[in-house]
């Protein structure tokens, strides 16, 4: 993570040059499209498409690797829990019942296993576009993009303020941790048991909270003194005019949604491979 607290990575790519609001709409559209289906074929295509776009954006694999692994692992665990909690949900959905493993009181069906696999694909297929948005949208442009697609500027600016102060709070947290460590509180591996260390992390919340509250007071004073929130509208220092590429992207996205609606009328919701 860069010191500015955002994940933005500067690269000369066509995706970087798209307006933040365009990318936000793409993200929303893409997600809506994915949620129309429960079909692994569509998800596979979208995963390939998504990662190709990531390739175009020139974001190094190294930076997105941890997040990608995290999401994949999360989806797998999620699927596993789903299997254990509702072992027959897939059959209820598809209406066919193929017993795979039986254990006392019930059985896991093949349909449910397939459902779990499909669900994992579903989550992963949203990942590339999210990464794309997060890594290629400059935090400064983020607030103005939100505002451009209709979010009130006060809400939008709150996001920007959060970006601004995350590193400060992080630094403060380190300071507090060091102060506590110097008094014999264990935070590091090997100094105490995991439970104890976790409890110790709770102790730093009190000072962190107090200092954050103080900060909020200063920030809100600073905002008021400089005329924030008085006018109904505001202009943005960092806003750039939309380009032809933004238009094309939105058009393509509209096409995708249209295609989605058409496909939805043609396909059954939960596609089985046999």
């Amino acid at each position, binding site marked *: 993570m860069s010191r500015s607290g955002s994940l933005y990575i500067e690269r000369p790519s066509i995706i970087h040059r798209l307006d933040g609001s365009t990318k936000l709409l793409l993200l929303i559209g893409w997600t809506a499209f994915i949620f129309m289906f429960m079909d692994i074929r569509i998800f596979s295509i979208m995963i390939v498409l998504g990662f190709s776009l990531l390739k175009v954006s020139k974001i190094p694999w190294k930076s997105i690797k941890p997040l990608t692994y995290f999401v994949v692992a999360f989806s797998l665990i999620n699927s596993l829990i789903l299997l254990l909690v509702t072992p027959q949900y897939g059959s209820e959905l598809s209406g066919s019942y193929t017993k795979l493993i039986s254990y006392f009181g019930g059985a896991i069906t093949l349909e449910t296993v397939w459902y779990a696999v499909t669900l994992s694909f579903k989550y992963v297929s949203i990942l590339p576009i999210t990464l794309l948005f997060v890594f290629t949208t400059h935090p*400064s442009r983020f607030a103005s993009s939100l505002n451009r697609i209709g979010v009130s500027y006060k809400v939008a600016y709150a996001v920007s303020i959060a970006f601004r102060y995350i590193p400060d709070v992080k630094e*403060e947290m380190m300071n*507090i941790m060091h102060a506590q460590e110097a008094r014999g509180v264990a935070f590091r591996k090997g100094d105490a048991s995991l439970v104890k260390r976790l409890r110790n992390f709770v102790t730093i919340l009190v000072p962190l909270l107090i200092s954050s509250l103080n*900060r909020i007071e*200063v920030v809100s004073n600073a905002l008021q003194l400089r005329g924030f929130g008085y006018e109904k509208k505001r202009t943005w220092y960092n806003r750039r005019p939309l380009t032809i590429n933004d238009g094309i992207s939105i058009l393509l996205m509209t096409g995708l949604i249209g295609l989605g609606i058409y496909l939805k009328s043609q396909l059954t919701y939960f596609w089985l491979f046999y």
Partner: protein
Amino acid sequence: MSHIVFKNFSFQYEAQTNPTLKNINLEIKQGEKILIAGPSGSGKSTLGHCINGLIPFSYHGKIDGELLINGKNYHETSIHDISGEIGTVLQDQDGQFVGLSVGEDVAFFYENHNVNQKDMFTGVKASLESVDMMAFIDETPHNLSGGQKQRVSLAGILTTNTGILLFDEPLANLDPVSAKHALELIDGIKKDKGSTIIIIEHRIEDVLLSGVDRVIVMEEGIIVADMHPDELLPTDILVNAGLREPLYVEALKAIGVTISPHDAISKIENIKVYKENVIQWFKNAKTQEVVERKTILKCERLDFRYYLDAPWVIKDVSFDIQKGELLAILGNNGAGKSTLLKLISGIIKQNKGDIILAGESLNEQTIKQRSRRIGYVMQNPNHMITKVKIFDEVAFGLRNAEVPEIEVEERVFEALKVCGLYKMRNWPVSALSYGQKKRVTIASILVMKPEIIILDEPTAGQDYRNYKEFMGFVNELRKSGVSVVIITHDMQLALEYADRAVVLSKGSVLRRAGVSEIMADKALMQQANLRATSLSDLAMLVGEEMESAFLSRYNYYMGGLNHE
């Protein structure tokens, strides 16, 4: 035409039972430069809040009397209207930097007032040029120093084109050199634009040396003085209000000079009329004898950097700490002072070199093991305090070390007594003042019976009364045999209290010597980016080669006076 007029003005915060400002009558004219001074809790910040509209629009309360700003009745406007008349630079340089980049922050007022981008860019550029920060337009705040952030805030205020600029403790978080630059910048803007300048500060010396038209002294919500510095400085008003006079004025008074308002003492070059008095005093003054002490901690050839390819933050640093001494580590921001402290306390580990405590190497000891022998008191007590009750806070370290509860109580009581907090042992920490909290943090370190206590900028942001009280207490501690290390850029603090000092610059030790010798070494002071105090100017009356002797004799003399 008058800019700001207070007439029989009083203000009482909603949650309080007594008014914070009582019957204020004050007039500030166009183009004036005013210093509003007062100890903590005197109401000077509240007065500032009244001027910039945070009162009553953000902090609510009861107002009596009248306040006119540029002829308009203040109550009937809004904070928005007032921000068009008065620009405010706040004390907290981080808190008020709301943009993600310099340009964005400066543009903030424009954005909120729907200025189009073209005008915005021109205005931002012009403002940044007038504070000499144009080269930083795309920087993020994290890459700027405190002084630079303040410049950006000032640029942001300049875009508003207000005639009045209000600075709320602008020097509080700045090192002496940056403070001087900030004041020069303010003067430059006043000259260019003819702005009215109001500075709220308790660091009086710095502001007075930059020249002001009037000083307003506040005490307990009342204006106790409103006069030209030449009239103010001969009086005892500042001292009685618990404020520190400029050092040279304090010194002149201490050596028995009677200052007359006609001597225009606010300009430091005018001290030459007292040359004979100073020389006479110097001839008769004595020097302190040097005390021999044993070494307790040795740092040998320490090297440190954060990453393999990063530049060295600490390079070949060697020094020692002696038993029962007060050692100052001097250096400007970025000199590596805090890093050095982290190395000693074990928060980070040196790449090369040894740290030896009483003959035993600390190299392999963790921060936790070291914490019983080396206590580290952070600058901000709020970063250290995690418990609700004072007793629990002080007992925290012992309980972490699993000391039996009977012993815990005994040791905590003892530490609380030493720190003068015994009677308050069952109070909640939140009921304490900043200075008292600072004491709690010291008590919580003392209770561990460390051999060395490290204090990081112990007096930053405190007014003189608290400063004196706190340092007096530290001095007593030292006499009990504990070694105290103080990290500071305040030369006066070092001169008054430290036995010796280590000067750090860009991660290396430039010199280890007595503070008076260091202050007399002009080349060294410049190289380390430290700033001499006005006592040096006084010493010059005796002669340049006598500076070190003068400072040490004066210090000894003052120590004697304070103990009487």
